[in-house]
């Protein structure tokens, strides 16, 4: 099917107004929403604006066998968000497929064929539910037409039911499998001919199932990879098993940018099983997604390669690393905290903050620190590459297949068309695997072994010491309050190295896509506001970590709002609702955000009413306002990110020894329409636990440019005893707004909510993460 620009008649009517007025008219409603994406090539926003855009051709995504088995091609990375199940459910629901007959096959890297495949930014369902519904609806129409042709009746007389097409007048039926061959020959109907199912006809989309807040509501339509996962059959990157595989590890420069002075490899080559030692060039700075360089050891199994690496004697050229070799966390933190006292680049300004602070009845001031962290998915980076006859084939757990393909092509000097990338399951991603440096490393090594597959395995030490680190950050805030405690002025300075430093000379300032993560989009209604961004240089590879800069921005803003409430002597919830001001839509451009997660601000403004609703829901469910015994307290935080809204309340207890118990978390979440509520709940639960780790435990520090943690003994992430005793997820029923992200928005408010709860329980204010042993002091 060609990418036609069929626009629906409704396109010129204000979409948002229309949506709000049309709840209930489901088919039409969805059609109305589509026009945002229907002009694929010209789109400024959303799925159509992504490289490769969207594709909704059923012949690309849906295959039906003669025996009735329906295979969906999944074009997004599965890293635990359940997308292979959820997208297939969306298409299967619209098609009318019997879930037991549904299989899912993973697409290879091919943006021209499958549309955008870069799985980050909490975009998969937000950008793909509509194309998948269209693909399902078109396939259903083709099956109906095929049946009508066979029976010689008008197509209007037949209709699809679950896995079959029926001619009601005569009671004739044909299964999807029986119709598949003739349906495939038909022309794909135009988008204008598609009628999507009404909500009442849906079996999966938007339906609660599985475990809902501790109760097994109903059987969950089985997860496509569930059985394989629990039986050990699921194939992650490390599990790709090809005949004749060689195994490799790399000793990388301990400091970003360092080179090699000398290598003594004779002992390594004597380790049984070691076949070869290869020097890998240090990438030019900035490194982007290129290999860091180092020395690769190739062997007959992973253990031999690791033993060989242990036996290497390498003298590193630290001079090549420049001042990265002086990078030390304590000194850097002190420098940023000092810089935070001086004005920086003004990002957003209204009113006169200096006057407001000067004239304030009361001034509040605080500086917050969040350290570097490593994403550390449980599956460390790993890739298999085979180079043969001028072509390369890669198998890897990657979030960004296109960048992977281009990286492999680049390092091998091949055309993209000669590189095939097979995307395996990801044993967690969290942003680490959006950087395919490890696949390029494998390709670089495989180049030396024509025809033989090479599996490059990162150890946990490699993963933590050579991460694309979450940016360290300092946020300094000042506020002025009047005699009633009402905020009159708000000054916020944010300092973090930028991810842009990976790709270009270090800008030392955050870019629009970083500031737009909750900094300039801060929605409080305060007469005078000034937001500044003083410089912060990068000394390590900085990269995306789940929720990205929303983490420090939410942590600082939500902690500070609580400090303001305390200074004003007011209830925290009442105070933040006052800060939010009257219900209104804040258009992103009016706060200097031209990014908005790539979405149309007309369709996705910052809606303070939605913010208020999640705050009210979380606090109500948590029993906000009730008396707490000594050492126990409730803490609230909320945040808008990835065009969704989250609020969390923690109920915690801290005993005299400083031992923290998290009794309960109440999470309210509004992502607009919900495709698969079961997995939305799972994402919220998981983000809650991960966020507890960010708040309490996780930190990577540097000394002389070298990461000081290297495994889970020192780089701490949450364990089962750290989880809340009870987690409750409250999904806001909101089919009327446009669909928001799910994978990331649950994370940013966790740390500030937890620290606010700790304050409520103990009176101890946390301004430096992780909490670590600060409670026992």
């Amino acid at each position, binding site marked *: 099917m060609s990418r036609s620009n069929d626009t629906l008649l409704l396109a010129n009517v204000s979409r948002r107004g229309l949506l709000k007025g049309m709840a209930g008219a489901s088919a039409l409603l969805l059609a109305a929403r589509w026009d945002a994406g229907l002009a694929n090539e010209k789109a400024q926003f959303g799925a159509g604006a992504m490289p490769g855009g969207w594709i909704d051709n059923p012949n690309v995504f849906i295959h039906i066998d003669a025996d009735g088995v329906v295979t969906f091609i999944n074009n997004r990375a*599965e*890293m*635990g968000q*359940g997308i292979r199940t959820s997208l297939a459910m969306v298409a299967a629901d619209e098609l009318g497929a019997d879930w037991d007959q549904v299989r899912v096959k993973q697409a290879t890297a091919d943006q021209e064929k499958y549309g955008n495949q870069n799985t980050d930014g909490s975009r998969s369902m937000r950008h793909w539910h509509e194309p998948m519904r269209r693909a399902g609806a078109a396939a259903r129409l083709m099956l109906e037409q095929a049946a009508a042709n066979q029976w010689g009746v008008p197509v209007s007389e037949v209709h699809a039911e679950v896995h079959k097409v029926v001619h009601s007048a005569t009671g004739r039926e044909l299964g999807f499998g029986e119709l598949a061959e003739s349906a495939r020959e038909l022309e794909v109907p135009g988008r204008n001919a598609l009628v999507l199912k009404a909500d009442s006809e849906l079996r999966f989309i938007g339906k609660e199932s*599985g*475990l809902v807040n*501790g*109760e*097994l509501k109903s*059987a969950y339509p*089985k*997860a496509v*990879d*569930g*059985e*394989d*996962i*629990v*039986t*050990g*059959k699921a*194939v992650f990157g*490390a*599990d790709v*098993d090809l005949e004749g595989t060689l195994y490799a590890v790399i000793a990388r420069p301990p400091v970003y940018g360092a080179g090699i002075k000398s290598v003594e490899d004779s002992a390594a080559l004597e380790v*049984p099983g070691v076949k070869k030692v290869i020097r890998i060039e240090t990438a030019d700075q900035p490194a982007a997604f290129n290999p860091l360089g180092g020395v690769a050891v190739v062997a007959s*199994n*992973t*253990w031999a390669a690791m033993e060989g690496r242990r036996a290497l004697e390498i003298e590193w050229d630290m001079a090549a690393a420049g001042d990265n070799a002086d990078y030390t966390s304590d000194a850097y933190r002190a420098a940023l905290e000092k810089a935070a006292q001086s004005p920086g680049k003004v990002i957003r300004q209204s009113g006169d903050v200096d006057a407001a602070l000067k004239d304030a009845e009361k001034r509040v001031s605080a500086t917050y620190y969040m350290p570097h962290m490593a994403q550390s*998915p*449980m*599956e*460390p980076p790993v890739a298999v590459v085979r180079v043969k006859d001028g072509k390369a084939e890669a198998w890897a757990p990657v979030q960004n297949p296109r960048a992977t393909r281009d990286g492999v092509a680049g390092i091998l000097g091949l055309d993209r068309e000669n590189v095939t990338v097979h995307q395996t*399951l*990801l*044993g*967690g991603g*969290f942003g680490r695997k959006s950087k395919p440096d490890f696949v390029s490393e494998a390709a670089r090594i495989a180049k030396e072994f024509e025809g033989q597959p090479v599996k490059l395995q990162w150890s*946990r*030490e490699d993963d933590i010491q050579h991460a694309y680190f979450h940016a360290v950050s300092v946020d300094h805030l000042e506020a002025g309050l009047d005699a009633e405690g009402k905020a009159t002025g708000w000054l916020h300075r944010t300092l973090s190295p930028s991810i842009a430093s990976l790709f270009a000379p270090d800008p030392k300032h955050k870019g629009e896509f970083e500031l737009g993560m909750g900094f300039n989009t801060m929605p409080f209604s305060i007469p005078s506001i000034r937001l500044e961004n003083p410089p912060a240089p990068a000394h390590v590879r900085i990269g995306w970590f789940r929720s990205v800069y929303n983490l420090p921005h939410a942590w600082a803003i939500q902690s500070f709002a609580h400090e303001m409430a305390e200074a004003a002597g007011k209830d925290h919830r009442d105070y933040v609702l006052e800060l939010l001001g009257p219900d209104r839509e804040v258009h992103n451009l009016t706060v200097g955000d031209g990014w908005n997660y790539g979405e149309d601000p007309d369709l996705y403004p910052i809606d303070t009413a939605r913010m208020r609703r999640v705050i009210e829901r979380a606090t109500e469910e948590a029993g906000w306002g009730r008396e707490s015994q000594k050492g126990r307290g409730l803490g609230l935080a909320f945040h808008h990110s990835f065009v969704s809204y989250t609020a969390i309340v923690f109920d915690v207890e801290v005993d005299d020894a400083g031992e923290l118990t998290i009794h309960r978390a109440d999470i309210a979440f509004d992502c607009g329409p919900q495709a698969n509520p*079961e*997995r939305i709940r*799972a*994402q919220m*639960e*998981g983000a809650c*636990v*991960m966020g507890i780790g960010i708040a309490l435990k996780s930190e990577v520090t540097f000394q002389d440019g070298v990461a000081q943690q290297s*495994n*889970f*003994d020192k780089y701490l*992430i*949450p*364990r*089962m*005893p*750290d*989880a*809340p005793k*009870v987690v409750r997820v409250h999904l806001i029923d909101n089919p009327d707004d446009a669909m928001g992200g799910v994978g990331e928005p649950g994370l940013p408010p966790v740390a500030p909510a937890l620290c606010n709860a700790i304050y409520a329980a103990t009176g101890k204010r946390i301004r430096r993460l992780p909490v670590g042993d600060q409670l026992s002091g």
Partner: protein
Amino acid sequence: MASLTINGRQHELDVPDNMPLLWVIRDVVGMKGTKFGCGMAQCGACTVHIDGVATRSCVTPVSAVKGEVQTIEAMADDPVGKKVQQAWLDLGVAQCGYCQGGQIMNATGLLKSNPEPNSQEIIDAMAGNLCRCGTYNRILAAIERAAGKEVSS
């Protein structure tokens, strides 16, 4: 030369004595359900059973293995393991799934030695198994379900 029984099958293996059982299972025998996560018994992704006892295969030299090894691939044939797997599916525990084989092996080991653990016993027993996706609350509920308790968390 090491002689190992894995999931009831005998293997004669030409591997160094100090090679961890994990890499013998994965790279030499070629069974991929047992995962590498940390290499120092910090995460539990590599958990197998040796004579029914949950063991971290990444720090167990192959020469130290005296009993019969069972891996996640054999749990469907184990009455307790099967129950645990089913509870995992019923409650939608897994997210990415990478750690879950190790979690199931550890949970099954627990239920074999303590068929009716209370919540605290489960938490203590599972504290060595990391899940970066943060599925702990569902893991706890699934172990309770496998142990015959009603779901509650």
